[in-house]
């Protein structure tokens, strides 16, 4: 036993000495932890991003998925790692749900540095044999019958739920939110007729719309979308003009680095990020799915992260989602007070020249 231990100890001393010789960052593979399952929208966009980042820099970036608790498990994992830039968080929505419903205590704009690459927008569709074939029909039907309409969501307190709640709030629609495990299954529920309206993202509906399996009601972008087969998916503002200034209701795809990472590492990552989002290969992956490249970093991204969290916390409070923390508990203002509140006193932007 003794011989073995001394051998091991010797080995470590040697290893320690050798590993202390630092080269340029990164000297080992980077791990991107995506908070949703493989094959979903977030996973595909962020994997494509990681591929392009490694292609332009030669870095090795391994993408792993760590799902659960509205992203809180992935967040905790990255938080428990050293802030050396070797572990990146693959998130959507600047990770806003993790703090509100997931119970993690990090603020996206003071504890993380998030970079937004692209965003997807929400979509409502119905079966071809549905009693309503357009958003107007839907509003008519809802006015005449007092019955609640059922809509599928990607999960209680998730993005599809939130978007639908905002639309219901503005239009006065009476909706019953039926939660499913993810956007794909929510789409399926609309397809097999379990719910009146299939909720989801445009990227999840568009092929089924093109093939005639689904009929589009509206999407939450600012302008109409014309598909490759010439079908039009109208923006919701065509029917509800007063919602216009809240559009696009979107789900940004973001990667996060811990803010206490050495500043030159953050800039190195940001540089690789810029090259990747501008590459034609990334553009192609995103465009094919009707997801829009929209790069946002720095102070803008921080402000956006805070704003999204405020909006979500406010609406979840109004909906009474169990387990969701209120704006007060989070130390946030309500949506209407956001402009006056930002920037909070404990916020400091990351700048290249400190």
């Amino acid at each position, binding site marked *: 036993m003794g011989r*073995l231990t001394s051998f*091991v100890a010797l080995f470590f001393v040697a*290893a320690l000495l050798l*590993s202390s010789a630092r080269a340029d960052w990164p000297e080992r*593979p980077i*791990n991107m932890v995506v908070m949703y399952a493989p094959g979903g929208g977030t996973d595909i966009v962020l994997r494509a991003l990681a591929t392009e980042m490694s292609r332009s820099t030669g870095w090795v970036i391994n993408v792993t998925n760590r799902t659960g608790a509205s992203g809180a498990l992935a967040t905790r994992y990255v938080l*428990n790692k050293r802030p050396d830039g070797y572990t990146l968080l693959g998130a959507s929505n600047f990770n806003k749900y993790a703090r509100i419903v997931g119970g993690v205590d990090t603020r996206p704009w003071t504890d993380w540095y998030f970079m937004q690459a692209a965003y997807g927008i929400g979509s409502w569709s119905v079966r071809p044999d549905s009693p309503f074939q357009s958003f107007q029909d839907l509003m008519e039907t809802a006015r005449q019958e007092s019955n609640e309409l059922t809509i599928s969501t990607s999960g209680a307190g998730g993005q599809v739920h939130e978007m639908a709640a905002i639309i219901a709030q503005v239009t006065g629609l009476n909706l019953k939110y039926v939660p499913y495990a993810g956007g794909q299954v929510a789409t399926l529920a609309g397809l097999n007729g379990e719910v009146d309206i299939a909720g989801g993202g445009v990227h999840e509906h568009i092929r089924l719309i093109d093939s005639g399996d689904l009929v589009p009601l509206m999407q939450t972008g600012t302008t109409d979308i014309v598909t490759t087969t010439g079908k039009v998916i109208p923006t919701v503002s065509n029917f509800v003009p007063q919602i216009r200034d809240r559009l696009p209701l979107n789900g940004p795809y973001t990667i996060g680095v811990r803010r206490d990472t050495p500043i030159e590492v953050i800039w190195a990552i940001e540089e690789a990020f810029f090259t990747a989002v501008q590459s034609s290969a990334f553009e192609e992956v995103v465009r094919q799915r009707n997801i829009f490249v929209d790069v946002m970093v720095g102070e803008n991204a921080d402000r956006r992260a805070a704003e999204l969290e405020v909006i979500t916390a406010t609406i979840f409070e109004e909906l009474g989602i169990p387990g969701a923390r209120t704006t007060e508990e989070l130390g946030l203002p309500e949506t209407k007070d956001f402009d006056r509140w930002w920037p909070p006193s404990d916020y400091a932007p990351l700048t290249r020249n400190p």
Partner: protein
Amino acid sequence: MDDRPKRKAKRNQETLPGHYERGPVVGKNFASAVVIGVLAMVFMVLSLRLEVPGSIYTAPGMLPFIVSLTLFFMAVGLGISALRQGSIGDNLGGLARHLKNYAVDQEGRRTVMLIGMVFLYVLLVAVLSFDFRIPVFFFDFEITSYEVVSILVVGMILRIFWKKSLVRCGFVSLIMIEALVSVFRYGFGMIMPEAF
């Protein structure tokens, strides 16, 4: 598929998952019935205490309550059948005898020791966390706490149960674990187990 000449059914029985010896089974069933009955009651209470955000149909505690209620009845059923085969005294006696046998039996003691070692293994991997990288020519040789702990613990278990020399056990453990870890790490880009 031709049927081979069957050995005695009694022999086969040992190969099945869920086999048990006939002797002390009465005590075992009675004890399980009591433990499971109590467990079911606890879960019934817990289910009733869950909040009901929507209507009663979608109450989070509904199905758990039904399940724990039926589990309770099943435990009662198991208890009754145990009591049919012997009185409470017989049952308790049977259980005590079995526990005593287990404690005296060498296999029982070895099992307890093995459980302790597995515990130790899992805890060590959780507590220790390091990750060394040694550049060897063109590639980084990596050593994590997981493999070091694994090599030591598995080597130790081999030494005790396989009963070969320490060098041989250590060697087998080293080679096998390094092979395993390499496939995962370099082949699949996987992270080795660690508590964070």
